[in-house]
C-alpha cells in the first residue's frame, strides 16, 4: 500500500530537482540580464578592457618596431600568439576569473552562504559576478587572431582548421584550471591571493609571448609545471609551420587538449580537498 501511494504522489514539475544544465542556464542568464540593464557602465567597462588588451600588445609592438624578430618570430607571428593567448585568457577569465576573489569571500564569511545552497560551489562562484565586460578581451583576441593569421600567411589544411578551433578552447581550459587551482590554494593561504597571481596572470603573460624568449629553466617551468607555453605559443608554431626552440618542438602544439584534461583532474582534486579543509572564518 505504502509503496503504491509513494508512486502515486509524483512530484509536481516545480518540485523536481533541476538538472545541472538548467541550473547553469538559469544562473548565467540572470547575471547577463542584470548587467545588460546598465548600458553606459557596461560600454565604459568594455572599452576599458579593449584598451588594456591594446596597451599590452603595444608593449610587444614597440619592441618589434626596434628589432625584426622576437624569440624567432616576426610581428604578425607574435600577433598570432598574442591573439590566441588573449582569446583563451578571455574565455577563462569570463568563466573562472571570479575565483580569484575567493579569499574575500572566505574572510567575510560569505562562503558559508554559498555552501548551504544546493548548487555546486564552483558554479556559484563562477556565475556570481560574471562580468560581461570581459567579453572585450575575447572580441579583441578573436579579431587580432583572424587578422594576424591572414597577414602571417596562414594556409589552412583540415588539421590546421581543427587546431585553430581547438587551441583557444584547450588554452581556456588550461588557464581556467590554473584559476581554479589558485582559488583552491586560498583555502590554505587566505592572505596569499597575490601568490596565486604569479600562476594565473603570470601564466597569461607567458602565454601571450613567444616561448623562445625564455631561458631554458623558465621555459621548462612554464611548460611542465604551469603549462602556459602550450596555450598559444606552441599551437602557433604548428599553425604557421615554424620550428620550435629546445623543449618545444612543433608537435607540442597539439598537446593543449590532453594537458587541459590532466590539469583539470589535478585542479578538481585540489579544489575538493580545499573545500573539505575549509572550517569557516566568518561569524
Amino acid at each position: 500500500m505504502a509503496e503504491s501511494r509513494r508512486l502515486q504522489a509524483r512530484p509536481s514539475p516545480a518540485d523536481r530537482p533541476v538538472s545541472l544544465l538548467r541550473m547553469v542556464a538559469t544562473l548565467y542568464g540572470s547575471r547577463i540580464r542584470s548587467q545588460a540593464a546598465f548600458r553606459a557602465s557596461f560600454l565604459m567597462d568594455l572599452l576599458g578592457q579593449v584598451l588594456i588588451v591594446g596597451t599590452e600588445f603595444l608593449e610587444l609592438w614597440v619592441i618589434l618596431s626596434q628589432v625584426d624578430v622576437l624569440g624567432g618570430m616576426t610581428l604578425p607571428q607574435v600577433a598570432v600568439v598574442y591573439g590566441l593567448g588573449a582569446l583563451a585568457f578571455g574565455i577563462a577569465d569570463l568563466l573562472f576569473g571570479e575565483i580569484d576573489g575567493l579569499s574575500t569571500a572566505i574572510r567575510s564569511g560569505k562562503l558559508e552562504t554559498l555552501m548551504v545552497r544546493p548548487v555546486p560551489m564552483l558554479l556559484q562562484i563562477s556565475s556570481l559576478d560574471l562580468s560581461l565586460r570581459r567579453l572585450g578581451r575575447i572580441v579583441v583576441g578573436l579579431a587580432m587572431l583572424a587578422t594576424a593569421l591572414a597577414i602571417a600567411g596562414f594556409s589552412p589544411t583540415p588539421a590546421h582548421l581543427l587546431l585553430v578551433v581547438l587551441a583557444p578552447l584547450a588554452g581556456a581550459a588550461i588557464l581556467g584550471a590554473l584559476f581554479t587551482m589558485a582559488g583552491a590554494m586560498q583555502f590554505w593561504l587566505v592572505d596569499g591571493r597575490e601568490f596565486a597571481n604569479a600562476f594565473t596572470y603570470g601564466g597569461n603573460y607567458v602565454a601571450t609571448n613567444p616561448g623562445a624568449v625564455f631561458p631554458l629553466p623558465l621555459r621548462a617551468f612554464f611548460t611542465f609545471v604551469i603549462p602556459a607555453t602550450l596555450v598559444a605559443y606552441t599551437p602557433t608554431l604548428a599553425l604557421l609551420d615554424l620550428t620550435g626552440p629546445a623543449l618545444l618542438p612543433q608537435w607540442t602544439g597539439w598537446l593543449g587538449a590532453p594537458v587541459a584534461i590532466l590539469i583539470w583532474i589535478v585542479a578538481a582534486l585540489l579544489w575538493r580537498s580545499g573545500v573539505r579543509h575549509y572550517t569557516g572564518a566568518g561569524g
Partner: protein
Amino acid sequence: MLAFGRIVAASFRQYSTYRVATVAGVFTNSIFGLIRASILLAAISTAGGELRGYDALQAATYVWLGQALLAPIEAFGTREVAERVHEGDIAVDLLRPMGFLRLHYARKLGRSAFLLLARGIPPMLVGALLTGITLPTDPLSWLLGLLAVVLAITVAFLADLIVNLTAFWLVQTRGLTVVYTAVMNLLSGFLIPIAWFPDQLIALTRATPFPAMVQTPIDALSGRLTPLETLPQVGIQVAWAAVLTVGAWLLLRAGTRSLEVQGG
C-alpha cells in the same frame, strides 16, 4: 607635523602586519620580473647586445627597479577614496582635525615606505642573483635617486587621488580606474623604457606626468642619468606634484560642496 608623523608611522605598522601577503607579493613580483627581463633581454640580444642605449645589464636593472617601485607607487590603482565617497564615509574624513589631502598623503607615505622596504628590496636581490643589476656608487646619485622615488610616489598618489575623487560625480569609477592604470602602465615607462617608443609617442609621453612616476626614479637609480642630469628631471617631478596638488584640492573643494550624505 607631529600628527602627520604619527599617521605615517601607524600606516607603516598597519601594513607590516600582513606578513603572508608580503611574502606572496615578493614571490609574484619576482616571477613577473623574470618574465619581463626575459622578453627585454631577448630583444636586446637580437639587436646585437644594445638597443637604444640599453645593454643587457642596464635593461635587467630597469626591469628590477620597476618591479621594486610597482608596489610603493601602487601602479594598479587604488579604490579606497572612491569607495569612501560612495559609502559616505568621506564625511568622517572631512570632519577630522587634519586636512583630507594631508591625512591621505600621510597614510600613503607610511604604506609606501613599508612596501618599498618589504616588497621592493627582495625582488632587487633576486634580480641581482639571477640576471645581475648595476647601481650607482656615488652617494649623490643615491640621494637624488631616493628623492626621485619619494617624488614619484607623491605624483602617482596625487594622480590616483584625482581619479578617485571623480567618484563625487560618477556613480561607477571602475571603468575610469581601469583605463587610467592601462595608460599609466604604458606611458610611465613601466612596461618598456620610454626611449624605445616611436619618436612621436616619446614627445607625447614627455608632456604627461606619467614619466615622473616610474621612468625618472629608475633613470636616477640605475645610473643612466648623472646627478647633474637628474636635477632637471626632479624639477619636473616637483612641478607635476604642485600642479596635481592644486588639481586635487580644487576637485575636493568642488566635490565637498556638492556632497550629500544620507543617514547618520
